């Protein structure tokens, strides 16, 4: 392999280390510290969980644009059962997951069986999810959550925030799911060549529905992580996650030689984005700078992949 090829193959890792070294030199007192690492891991946990869900949907070759709305809807559902009905924390978490699964099922059925292009279907389902959310909450803020629920965000294990551990555990679970199970292999086949997958006996429609349901579960979990940390539900809390979640997944693509979306890559992609945001804030850069740099990083990473992908697929 040429140096160039190696550089491209490991571009995500190189960018990751590069960003770490850069910010560590720029802010040696605050950036390379355990406190900062812990903060980044904790704050990235929501995006991590969403990016993992997005990865599964990308693996089967579809898009889910309802991510933010579904997160909001599930947050509203979980918080309202605690605020209005005094349900315990564990029940609220189950409600969030269930609501996410239902939204995911709706997406999956619309895409796989009704055969609406996922771009349109998930936009529509997202809009409906947003409407239901507002019907529940009437754009108010809910507080007064179960103390046990708030502990999700405050607990640490060996000084590691529980939210970061949850995100890592989900990442690990999905890594195993995609790499080692029959479902994972089926999902990857569907995304690569749906016709060939069908002709090889893969239940294409079912695989798609499962992927969207998994995405919905991730959105429900992300909602729990957001609301437990904010100790409230507030309108539009899911805004701003869609783009970075996809950005992270596309950054992670480089880890597989640009061929396949993968959980580890998405996870590292999220941490890279988190590091850049935090580092730029520490350097007193204006807040738009982070968005600018994230956009540029994404363009550079994905353009290299696009070239190689064409080569590999002979297109």
């Amino acid at each position, binding site marked *: 392999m040429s140096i160039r090829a190696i550089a491209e193959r490991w571009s995500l890792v190189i960018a990751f280390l590069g960003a770490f070294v850069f910010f560590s030199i720029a802010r040696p007192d605050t950036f390379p510290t355990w406190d900062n690492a812990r903060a980044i891991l904790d704050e990235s946990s929501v995006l991590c969980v969403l990016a993992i869900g997005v990865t599964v949907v990308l693996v089967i070759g579809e898009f889910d644009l309802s991510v933010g709305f579904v997160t909001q809807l599930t947050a509203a559902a979980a918080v309202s059962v605690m605020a209005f009905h005094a349900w315990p924390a564990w029940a609220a978490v189950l409600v969030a997951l269930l609501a996410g699964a239902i939204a995911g099922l709706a997406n999956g059925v619309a895409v796989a069986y009704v055969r609406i292009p996922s771009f349109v279907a998930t936009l529509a389902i997202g809009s409906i999810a947003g409407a239901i959310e507002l019907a529940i909450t009437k754009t108010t803020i809910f507080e007064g959550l179960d103390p046990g629920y708030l502990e999700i965000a405050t607990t640490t294990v060996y000084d590691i925030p529980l939210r970061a551990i949850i995100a890592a555990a989900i990442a690990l679970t999905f890594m195993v799911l995609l790499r*080692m*199970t*029959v*479902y994972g*292999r*089926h999902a*990857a*086949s569907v995304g*690569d*060549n749906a*016709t*060939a*997958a*069908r*002709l*090889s*006996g*893969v*239940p*294409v429609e079912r695989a798609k529905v499962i992927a969207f349901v998994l995405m919905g579960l991730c959105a429900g979990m992300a909602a729990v992580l957001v609301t437990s940390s904010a100790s409230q539900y507030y309108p539009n809390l899911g805004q701003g996650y869609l783009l970075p979640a996809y950005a992270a997944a596309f950054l992670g693509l480089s880890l597989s030689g640009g*061929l*396949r979306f993968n959980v580890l890559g998405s996870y590292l992609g999220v941490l890279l984005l988190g590091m850049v945001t935090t580092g730029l804030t520490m350097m007193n850069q204006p807040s738009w700078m982070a968005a600018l740099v994230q956009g540029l990083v994404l363009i550079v990473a994905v353009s290299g992949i696009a070239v190689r992908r064409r080569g*590999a*697929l*002979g297109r």
Partner: protein
Amino acid sequence: MAVSAVPWLEAVGLTKRYGGVVALEDASVTAHTGTVHGLVGANGAGKSTLVKCLTGIVRPTSGSVRVEGRPLQLGRPVEALRVGIASVPQELTVAPTLTVAANVMLGHEPRRRVGLIRRRELDRRASVALESVSLDVTLDTPVGQLPLIEQRIVMIARALSFNARLVIFDEPTATLSPHEAELLLETVRGLAHRGVSVLYVSHHLREIEAVCDTVTVLRDGRVIRDLERATHAALVALLAPETGPSASVDRPDRVAGDVVLELRAVTGARLQDVSLVVREGEVVGLAGLSGSGAREMLLTVCGAVPFISGSIALGGRRLRSGDTLAAVEHGIGFLPGDRSLGLFPTHTVRHNVALPSLKRYARLGFVDRRRERSAVEGLLGRVALAASPEAPVTSLSGGNQQKALVARWIGSDARLLLLDDPTAGVDVATRPEIHSQIRALSQAGVGVLLVSTDEEELAELSDRVVVFERGVVTGELTSHGLTPARVLAAMTGQPLEAKHTLEEDA
């Protein structure tokens, strides 16, 4: 038709090499004004390469082309179009929502200085072109609303709208019904009548006989014969020379097994009233040109294409129309002729080979990678493919990718294999290996439906050959005296009555 002394186009000594592979060698061809010139040959004989050299898509390694005595700049599509060489592509490439006029003039619309389209001029030029193909349609009809044949003719008008003097047709009747094909041939004759010269590429030898004034026969990249007024029989003799009894392989007489597949009066988009039985261990060849229904049969049986009436039963169990999943679950394996329908390009050889049988290597939903890997290694050995299971499948050559796909179905529990051109793009050395694998499978009791554009392959592997033409079964050749020449004659439209004559000749 009087043939003028100086040809409109004269190509001399065209040679095209791709690396060490010779696609075309020292080929010469001429096209006279007002005549139809045929180009025939087996797949890979060099027809397409020759056509591409003329239209400028491919720059020949050596050789020259003269148009009206002046040398043509080679490898320049724009230049070829400018002097009047136009081609009607094999596939339909209309923009269905645009109007007839817009489609005819697509890409060279008459414009005003600011870039706006001159509508009236566009309509005028379009109607001139449509008139020369005698197509009577309203200019502002969306092309998608026309019947297929008229869409085809719109494309011919489009080719003519470039002031074409030579129009090249590549397999133009492939998807047409007999009546539509006749209309198209009529259009082709009409063009010649108007003084256009036509180059007509087709496997349908009967069409060649019907429409061509002169014919060039290609084999292995070389011109082997130029004929005037070629007959069907003469062309068959040139394309598949009778090589004596050795061409038909001796097949051990086997006891016919149980019925694996039974079709009763199946009618679908491209099939009409097809009934067929495949028994265990039997290789049934399906002969027919593209669009004949042979390939459509495979797609219908595996559920990729739905059928409207009739029934398909696999091992006694009825298959629902268009239910691929059930078809595969009940033991159908499909090896598509187009590898892009079979391969998972971003994955390893292991994944590509193991996918249909993955559940056998799995416990509780988890794949045992070691078992999977050793099974795949065994399968690769059986097809003599020396590649690592972990290699990306795209790192293999086309022939080796094909071997990997064959290995996929050897490893599955398929009871019925649907093979579509199993050795397409496979090198000479690999071909017998794949053939022996197919034989081994059939001896193990697997039923095989084989579609091939290669008459030798059909003759060699099949126990019997069913002949398709335009969606209908038109005949059956039984193992007794199954030779490449007979298969070719049958699939290129030998009238059925003549079949007997042919057998008497032999």
